[in-house]
């Protein structure tokens, strides 16, 4: 059915197959079936109680009428006590109905909330499985809109319609039985036009459904715009784009408004139609029934009674129109939500998982690329026939021009993408045979663009530690050895001490001390309240703390001044011992110590070797190096 593609949702017309929709709807409904059943029982009780009140009232009034109107002295006190009994019963029924009503609403609406809760969690779970390719192709605003507004509509889809449909059913069955009891021919005549009318209604409902989808998609567009505008607000301000942004938003706002109007028209039309439908019954009674009365096959009392039932059915029928609207909005939203849920994660865990060999001896983390080719979009290859070996425990560097594929290469190691061709092995195991999460546990990744969450600095640093500490599904134990692998160290280190150590290694001590709240300092979303270099160093600390087998530094010191860079590199040198580390950098002065340097050009490895070897080869690297050196020294 759904193929693992990374087409963004909404990029093409998505139609959820009806059976899948039904199955999914049921899947969320099922666990709360009992609640809904209990709710319906309470509803029926409520209806029974309220519907029997008129009877007692009518009887009492009738009794009064007979008594008051009748000549002679009746025993008024007996009548009075009878009437009082009736009023007590009415009051009791009212209270009973109220209690049952409270319970019915609570059970049914709560069930709706629980379903919403489940759907939200399921969505989050699913989103957490989707790959970077998916997120690259899908606007965040659209995702947010689906996971927020649409889920709300899905909740309404369950609870409210259910309540009303049960109510309507009860009303209909009571009325219909009584109607048949009065005159079955007339009942039949009343029912006759319904199929035709309902058929007409279907078309309107279809229009309602499609238009609802359009409106929801437009709402998504609005969210997307807002989300993008807010995340780029500094650029908007610096380039004085506020005016333009407001105008663009104005246009989208206007479209949304217009589509909403179309929806309003359809809805109003539907409600008008339903009123027609509901009143048709009364018209039929008038037309057909009056004949029956005149030709004597029905008496007037029956006619009036029958009409009473038909009229009583009008309000619940009209309410159905409202229910239809909510239902269709819910279904449209449900489709949009399901579109995400049906989107199969591109990166799957292996069926026959292998596992990384236990760290034996000193060195683990050998990385082998075997003829790997990869392209992001299918045609333009970002990596071409890359073969390389990074021995366990060694330090490698990857250099190359902008866009040559360095970041792409390391992303493949962390299996953020799967290669199109070739194989990547870590300690002899192909990465796609290792359970994804186990693999990533062993990788400390410092991305090129630092991303921090709006938590405190300390919480950001222990971001990965939290997974190891609280996620019982992960095998890896919380590391407790010191970061600077001190051979003589015995016992365990607390995480607090390790964090302190990481702060020193990432040369963050001065910065943290400078913050009045220290590690408790809040950083803004994406870390916006930190300087670029501070952000980068926090991400370094974050990666170091999980004690990874493989450490990947993607241009991780680009925003750090030379001075600090040197301090960090010096420390990292120690850290990198015993684990494989890969550095991507544009500054060659850090590379003299590295075990192996790979030079990438346009997705191919063009040279490899140690700094010395490459200089000797006098190839691309040597020339780049010389130029850089020259530029830096030309004033010396």
């Amino acid at each position: 059915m759904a193929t693992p593609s990374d087409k963004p949702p909404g990029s093409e017309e998505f139609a959820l197959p009806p059976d899948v929709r039904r199955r999914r709807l049921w899947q969320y409904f099922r666990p709360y079936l009992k609640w809904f059943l209990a709710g319906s029982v309470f509803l029926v009780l409520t209806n029974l109680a309220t519907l029997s009140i008129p009877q007692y009232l009518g009887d009492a009034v009738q009794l009064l009428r007979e008594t008051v109107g009748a000549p002679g002295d009746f025993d008024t006190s007996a009548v009075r006590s009878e009437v009082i009994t009736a009023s007590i019963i009415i009051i009791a029924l009212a209270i009973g109905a109220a209690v049952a009503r409270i319970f019915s609403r609570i059970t049914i609406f709560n069930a709706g909330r629980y379903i919403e809760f489940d759907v939200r969690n399921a969505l989050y779970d699913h989103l957490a499985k989707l790959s970077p390719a998916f997120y690259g192709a899908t606007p965040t605003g659209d995702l947010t809109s689906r996971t927020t507004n649409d889920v709300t509509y899905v909740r309404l889809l369950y609870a409210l319609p259910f309540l009303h449909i049960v109510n309507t059913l009860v009303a209909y069955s009571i009325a219909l039985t009584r109607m048949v009891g009065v005159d079955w021919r007339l009942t039949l005549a009343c029912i006759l036009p319904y199929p035709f009318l309902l058929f007409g209604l279907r078309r309107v409902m279809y229009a309602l459904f499609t238009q609802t989808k359009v409106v929801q998609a437009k709402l998504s567009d609005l969210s997307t715009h807002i989300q993008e505008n807010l995340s780029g607000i500094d650029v908007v301000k610096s380039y004085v784009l506020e005016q333009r942004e407001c105008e663009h938003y104005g246009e989208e706002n206007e479209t949304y408004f217009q589509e909403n109007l179309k929806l309003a028209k359809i809805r109003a039309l539907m409600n008008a139609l339903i009123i027609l439908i509901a009143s048709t019954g009364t018209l039929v009674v008038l037309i057909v029934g009056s004949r029956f009365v005149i030709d004597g096959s029905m008496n007037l009392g029956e006619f009036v009674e029958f009409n009473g039932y038909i009229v009583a059915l009008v309000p619940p029928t009209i309410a159905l129109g409202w229910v239809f609207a909510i239902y269709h909005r819910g279904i449209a939203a449900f489709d949009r939500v399901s579109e995400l849920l049906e989107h199969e994660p591109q990166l799957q865990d292996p069926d026959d998982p292998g596992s990384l060999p236990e760290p034996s001896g000193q060195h683990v983390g050998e990385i082998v690329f075997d003829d790997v080719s990869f392209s992001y979009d299918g045609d333009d290859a970002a990596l071409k026939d890359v073969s390389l070996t990074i021995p366990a425990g060694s330090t490698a560097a990857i250099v190359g021009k902008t866009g040559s594929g360095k970041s792409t290469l390391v992303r493949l190691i962390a299996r953020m993408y799967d290669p199109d061709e070739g194989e990547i092995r870590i300690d002899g195991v192909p990465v796609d045979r290792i359970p994804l999460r186990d693999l990533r546990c062993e990788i400390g990744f410092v991305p090129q663009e630092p991303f921090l969450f709006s938590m405190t600095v300390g919480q950001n640093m222990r971001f990965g530690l939290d997974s190891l500490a609280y996620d019982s599904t992960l095998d890896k134990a919380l590391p407790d050895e010191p970061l600077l692998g001190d051979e003589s160290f015995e016992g365990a280190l607390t995480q607090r001490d390790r964090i302190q150590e990481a702060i020193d290694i990432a040369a963050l001590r001065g910065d943290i001390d400078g913050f009045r709240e220290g590690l408790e300092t809040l950083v803004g979303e994406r870390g916006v309240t930190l300087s670029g270099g501070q952000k980068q160093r926090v991400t370094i600390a974050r990666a170091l703390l999980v004690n990874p087998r493989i450490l990947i530094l993607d241009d991780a010191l680009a925003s750090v001044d030379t001075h600090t860079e040197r301090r960090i590199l010096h420390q990292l040198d120690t850290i990198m011992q015993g684990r494989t580390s890969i550095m991507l950098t544009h500054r060659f002065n850090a590379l003299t110590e590295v075990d192996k340097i790979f030079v990438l050009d346009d997705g191919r490895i063009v040279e490899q070797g140690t700094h010395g070897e490459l200089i000797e080869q006098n190839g691309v690297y040597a020339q780049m190096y010389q130029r850089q050196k020259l530029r830096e020294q030309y004033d010396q």
Partner: protein
Amino acid sequence: MSDTDSTTESDASNGSTDRKDKGGAAIGSGFQERKLGKFADTALVRRLWKYMRPYRWLFVVCLLLLPAVSAVSLVQPWMLQIAIDDYLIPGEFDGLWFIMVVYAGTVVGHAFLTYWQQYLMKYAGNLALRDLRQDIFDHVQQLASSFFKKTPVGRLMTRMTTDTENLEEALSSGLVTMAGDLLTVFAIVVILMVVNWQLALASFIVVPFLIGFTAVLRYFLRKAYRTVRTKIARLYAHLQESITGMDVIQLFVREKVSRDEYSDINAEYRDANIRAIRWDAILYAVIEAAGSITIGAILWYGSGQALEGIVTLGVLVAFIEYMQKFFKPIRNLAEKYNLLQNAMASSERIFELLDTDEIIESPADPEPLPQRPYRIEFRDVHFSYTDDETVLDGLNFEIEPCERVALVGHTGAGKSTVINLLTRLYDIDDGQILINGRDIRNFDIHQLRSQFAVVLQDVFLFRGTILENLTLGDDSVPFDRVREAAEMVYADELINSLPGGYEFELAERGSNLSSGEKQLLAFARALILDPEVLVLDEATANVDTDTEALIQKAIERLLAHQTSLVVAHRLSTIQSADRILVLDDGQLVEQGSHDELMELGGHYARLVQLQYATTASTGGEDGFIEPLDHDD
């Protein structure tokens, strides 16, 4: 009934899972929701009315259509009565068709009027909502940078989308039908008082109780809805941040932990709703019951009077009928009430956002910008983002016209801050920033900013084509100019190699390019503006050094007559500047040309030595010299 209670929702509320006890924190937990409940209901309605006012006639028409709709439907029983009395009872068939036609006419009329009533109501409501939506967006555009740094996008989005949507029902049908219902109630009260005021008063005995009860429940309901709105903002902030940072979550295998956090907030949100449901159910049921109980009471009390002949039976029956009619709109009101409480909780949050005045003000009558070229001066500038950490502490420097100045300093020294202040993304606390001797706060802020082309440290590209990004949506920029700029930063070749060339579609934030490529585009974007002052904040940090050098050459050549301020760490970029400013501890510690500073042998010289030393020690066993401490 003004609402003065206030709920402060601390987001770091203490749950009970061990994860929280152990100090783990949820994504996006770093922000406190502000106080709510400073608005009275009347104030909220008044402010909503501001948006309804331009369309008030539409709302009035809707209001008038309401009784019209009921009137049409009321003709039906009347027609029925005529049919019975005049035709069915006498057994007369002729002429009955006329009644039938009229009846059918009312049915159609009812449907027709309903259509217009409902459509117009939505129309009016959505008009108001559209204006409100636009107002919020326009307002948010004016807010200062600092506001966005402390408000997560998800939270703002909740206010701008979900909370606004929440008002739709209230605006488009809620208020009007409520007004209609209130009118009906009022009419019935008048009728009953006229018919028999004693019995009427007796029947209304429950009303004060009902009002009191509603007032009490209103308190709980509103409180519940406030919690709901806070929780939902919290929930969406978490979600939004999780989505944007999903790759980090996945790389650090934090999916399950983050999901548990999310699930906890989700549960809190659910439970807050469940509390609201409880109060709502009670309110609704009690009002439903009140009608029947009143009827029982009338029967009880009235039957005695009827039997004693104090009131006629007809009056009693009529009263019972009327009371049933009386409670129908009240029931509707109760149903709408819930909706309204929810909407009020939302509008509180919306108006709170609209009231945020964290705005960098443009002067009321701005001075025209001075004659070019510009001489920029920082005079004893003090600045801190938060009250306690001083970032700039008496910074002094000048930039002469057409000078190329480099700003260096260790990370966190305040280089980017200088740039933020220059373009007035933030305002300084003390001192002055002057352009040709005039304080920048005297100029129109937009005009001021358009004198600078800033390449920010965090590159942000918009979704859309490369061309749109380079021209910033300004169609009047000639393509040659775009290409020229792209060539200057050596991005032209890159762009042409992409499918579609300049029409290549960038993903959000330009995430389908490499970091260096993005920086090149951002650079080109700035050059196209041909600004008076070019400001580069580590604009080529992720670009390879060869390309960087080429770019620099090109810029030197082409921008000889422009002032530029460059922040960079690579020596090669800095060296060629006319003047180098060394920033430390929020102050200027050295300045001069490369040579002068080398001679001085201070901070800068040490920096250069360090870089030189590393570069020189090729392949040495211990190439690293012991790093110096910068904070001396």
